[in-house]
């Protein structure tokens, strides 16, 4: 279900989804194209394409074939520069109404992937949930670290990619499962988004999260039989969209909606934001028990 102002990057063509992996293993390209068509028809703004660690040639082949099946722009999803290059070279903006592809994703340690912009201008998803410490990639544990990572990666993108603007940037501040969030990740994420929102130099940037990740490892329904995951994910969207979240890598099947402040999922989310440590888990458990 569509929410105005929210673009869904359809997540199903991904080698880590077991049913899709089976299609990759079987070489069933036609069914992969069907996944693209289905997500297109159900309102995806972009179609994500993740082939795992398969050969770059497969990414090139799939990009060309998926572009024959949908006019939606694609999200080339890989940390591997060779696979990214193959996907970007194969991508034809003209087949997507002139729209650039997304490159999902670029992290500080993989910033050299920005050089691929020369062969095909793209909108990078900048992984600002990671930072480089002593030459090693490490997760950001605080909002301040996330903000610093944002400034640094956005600056690198604007400097290295001629003509690139904030409007071409998509930040991924990293969302963690609420069912195991004993380290205040939700609080870090929301606070980081508030800080980024207040920085005039970052005006116009977009933000995206892998929303399904928020509710993994939780039961599908509450004790009263009502859906759990779509409610909590909707609560997150309601909280984060005013802070600049305007994209998600997610499911076109999920019924997202903006919630009223007194909706039980919204109340739960707000209380989780105020809680810390295991109290967050206790509050989530109370919501579904």
């Amino acid at each position, binding site marked *: 279900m569509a929410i105005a102002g929210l673009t869904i990057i359809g997540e199903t063509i991904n080698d880590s989804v077991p049913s899709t*992996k089976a299609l990759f293993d079987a070489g069933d390209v036609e069914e992969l194209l069907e996944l693209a068509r289905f997500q297109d028809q159900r309102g995806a703004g972009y179609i994500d394409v993740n082939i795992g660690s398969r050969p770059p040639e497969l990414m090139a082949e799939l990009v060309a074939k998926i572009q024959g099946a949908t006019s939606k722009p694609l999200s080339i999803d890989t940390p591997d520069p060779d696979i990214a290059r193959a996907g970007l070279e194969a991508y034809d903006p003209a087949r997507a109404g002139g729209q650039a592809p997304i490159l999902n994703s670029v992290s500080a340690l993989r910033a050299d992937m920005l050089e691929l912009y020369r062969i095909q201008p793209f909108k990078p998803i900048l992984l600002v949930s990671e930072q480089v410490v002593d030459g090693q990639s490490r997760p950001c544990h605080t909002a301040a670290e996330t903000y610093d990572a944002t400034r640094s990666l956005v600056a690198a993108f604007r400097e290295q990619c001629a003509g690139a603007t904030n409007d071409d940037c998509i930040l991924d501040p990293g969302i963690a499962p609420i*069912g195991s969030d*004993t380290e205040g990740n939700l609080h870090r994420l929301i606070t980081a988004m508030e800080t980024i929102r207040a920085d005039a130099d970052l005006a116009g940037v977009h933000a995206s999260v892998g929303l399904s990740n928020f509710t993994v490892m939780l*039961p599908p329904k509450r004790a009263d039989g009502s859906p759990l995951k779509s409610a909590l994910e909707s609560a997150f969207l309601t909280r984060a969209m005013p802070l600049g979240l305007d994209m998600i890598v997610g499911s076109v099947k999920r019924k997202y909606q903006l919630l009223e402040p007194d909706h039980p999922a919204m109340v739960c989310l707000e209380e989780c934001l105020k809680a810390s440590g295991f109290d967050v888990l206790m509050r989530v*458990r109370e919501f579904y028990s």
Partner: protein
Amino acid sequence: MSDPSELYEAILHGDARKAEAVTKAALEAKVDPSELLQKQMIPAMDEVGKRFECNEYFVPELLIAARAMKTSLELITPLLAEAGAEPAGRVVIGTVQGDLHDIGKNLVASMLEGGGFQVVDLGVDVSPEKFIEAAKQKEGTILALSALLTTTMTMMKAVIEALEKEGIRDKAKVIIGGAPITQQYADEIGADGYSDNASAAVALARKLAG
């Protein structure tokens, strides 16, 4: 004085405060710590695992129960060590090089601790060399490797190859897990075991340690 069997219930329901209080009371009453562990605590975590596997418990319940278990373990571990009691085994756990995901790894570590294992957590982005170094410290160590990405799971094979190169492949067991991992992959790379969830990982480790 509290009834030691209340410890079983406290852990099963994730009540850390009660677990601590009952443990303290039992120890003051001179209850054998080893008996507390074997008759109350480990059976409680086994029941948590069973409930998890039949979708009666989910990850929050697992983590809350593991915390209660840990609270009691911290009280009895020094006494067990004094008495010369051995842990169920030694597990060195970590997310492989290039991968920063730690949720599944932390969950497995908590459950293994709850299962009576000594757990050495090397964190995330762990190089094969670090795993080897940790394995060398004690023969019979179980290396538990986690990966969430198809692009990093290949590092599991690198760890096994490094063990072979060092000539200590037969001195350690290797178990693997994570979203893209399958039993087939474990067989392909010569791992000793695979588990698709934290509860089953404990059973697997017990089998290999036994």
